[in-house]
């Protein structure tokens, strides 16, 4: 049997196995799995022990392949999702200042949320969006949503739907057009922000569903940024937080908080120190911290365990890789 046929058979078997689990899920006889704290600890110990074995093998000169590293990273990400243990999440100053900025607002204030990201960044930014909406509803804030990325308003709708699934928030009876509105996407990047500084309506003549701006009670008296109490930007790149700082903050004096993907966060930290940003939620860590502060622990917190495990695996393999490097005498060879 050729290797290709073997590979196809393995893939087919995996898919059939997954199909059986899926049918079990749909028909209800397959329940989810959760590791108890004791089982979780055993899994962690086994994982650490296997890494120690790899280290010993490396010292003895038997190097592992790159696929082993992939498998370990996959395991480190997947297994914590089943674990019932939690991780201590300290609150960083930049998240606390963002939260304090929101706390300073009066109940019923008007907040503008700009969704400047698309589905690839959702694992990091969607938990921030959901916990931000929950916080806003707790405080009865009026929420005006917009997007400088085409898929941003769709992400906003998903987050809002998710939050409204919770009976606690569904009972609040947040009405579209009165308590919250999605103005949709507008093309033009930072020039949109520039125009909004003088007239929101010039950029958003209609909302996401095509209703005229004037017919929406929530934005009836919103002419420009001076009629908004707080702006929160969820950003994954350009246009995003940098543009909001440059135009909305520095030209129009907007109070801005930001939630960024981890890749973008270091670029935005200088604005924090200079006071141009009130606070930053940096990546999944920032999302988890905000969830903890607002008392709505959700996916951000849940994913942090996987995040920490995967980082430990990366660190472990960096150590193993360096051991292999020095034990194998490659340094000597490279310097020749």
């Amino acid at each position: 049997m050729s290797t290709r046929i073997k590979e196809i058979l393995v893939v087919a078997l995996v898919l059939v196995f997954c199909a059986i689990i899926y049918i079990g899920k749909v028909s209800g006889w397959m329940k989810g799995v959760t590791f108890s704290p004791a089982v979780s600890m055993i899994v962690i110990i086994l994982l650490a022990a296997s890494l120690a074995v790899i280290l010993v093998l490396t010292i003895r000169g038997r190097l592992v392949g790159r696929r082993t590293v992939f498998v370990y990273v996959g395991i480190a990400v997947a297994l914590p999702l089943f674990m019932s243990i939690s991780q201590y999440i300290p609150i960083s100053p930049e998240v606390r200042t963002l939260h304090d900025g929101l706390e300073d607002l009066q109940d019923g204030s008007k907040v503008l949320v700009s969704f400047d990201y698309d589905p690839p960044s959702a694992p990091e930014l969607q938990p921030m969006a959901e916990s931000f909406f929950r916080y806003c509803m707790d405080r009865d804030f009026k929420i005006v949503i917009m997007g400088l990325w085409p898929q941003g308003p769709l992400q906003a709708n998903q987050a809002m739907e998710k939050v409204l699934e919770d009976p606690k928030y569904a009972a609040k009876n947040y009405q579209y057009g009165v308590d919250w509105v999605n103005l949709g996407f507008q093309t033009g990047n930072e020039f949109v922000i520039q125009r909004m500084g003088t007239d929101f309506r010039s950029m958003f003549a209609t909302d996401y569903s095509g209703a005229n701006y004037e017919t929406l009670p929530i934005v009836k008296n919103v002419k420009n940024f001076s009629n908004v109490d707080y702006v929160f930007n969820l950003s994954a790149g350009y246009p995003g937080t940098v543009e909001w700082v440059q135009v909305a903050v520095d030209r129009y004096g907007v109070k801005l908080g930001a939630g960024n993907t981890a890749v973008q966060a270091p670029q935005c930290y200088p604005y924090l120190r200079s006071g141009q940003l009130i606070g930053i939620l940096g990546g999944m860590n920032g999302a988890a911290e905000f969830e903890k502060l607002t008392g709505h622990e959700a996916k951000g917190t849940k994913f942090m365990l996987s995040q920490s495990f995967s980082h430990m695996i990366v660190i472990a393999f960096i150590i193993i890789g360096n051991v292999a490097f020095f034990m194998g005498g490659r340094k000597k060879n490279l310097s020749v």
Partner: protein
Amino acid sequence: MFWEHFAVWVAAFLTLGIYSFLYKDNPWYKLCESIFVGISAGYWFVTLFWDNIYGKFWVGVFPPTHVNELGESVRTAQPDYWLLVGAVLGLLMLLRLVPKIGWLSRWSLAFIVGATAGFYLINYFSSNVMRQVQDTIMPLFGSGFDASAYVIIGNIVVAVGTFTGLIYFFFSKEHRGAFGFSAKVGIFFLMVTFGASFGYTVMSRMSLLIGRIDFLLSDWLGLIR
């Protein structure tokens, strides 16, 4: 209902197909990659057409009308004929496809370069230069010698890091002696910066993986409670 199951299976099939590249390059991966590239190109074409050409230009020049209470057909907004200038400049860009008159596209490019340079110059100079410089020039111990040890140390690190970082990029003098030592300290700060950025990048990429694995185990297979 059927389409919901179908959509989840398609998403799972494509996710696994993309990750199959970790094993080795294979036809499944290539199929998924091609689907991704094709759909992305189509999506962006349609989005840009409806948002820019139709949503901005067409609706701007020919605003839609609606019937008011008196039964009269009225425009929802005044036509903005300045958009025609942009449309002409856009058409000139396409003349690059005609070699004989392709030079006309330079007018559009000149407009774009000039306008964006002017806009960005102000923005970046104000936000990324003046405000940052202003924030770096500050009393080390607080305005009334009232800063905490944490703040004082932070201020000293910022001052030393900025100063030595600038020295590293000063190439008009040979990096020797005290000057060379300062440049080396500057390199140290740069390395810390790059390290922090790399750490954040790892966190971001892991987040993407966590998102997909959560989808596979939770939304697809329902294994996570």
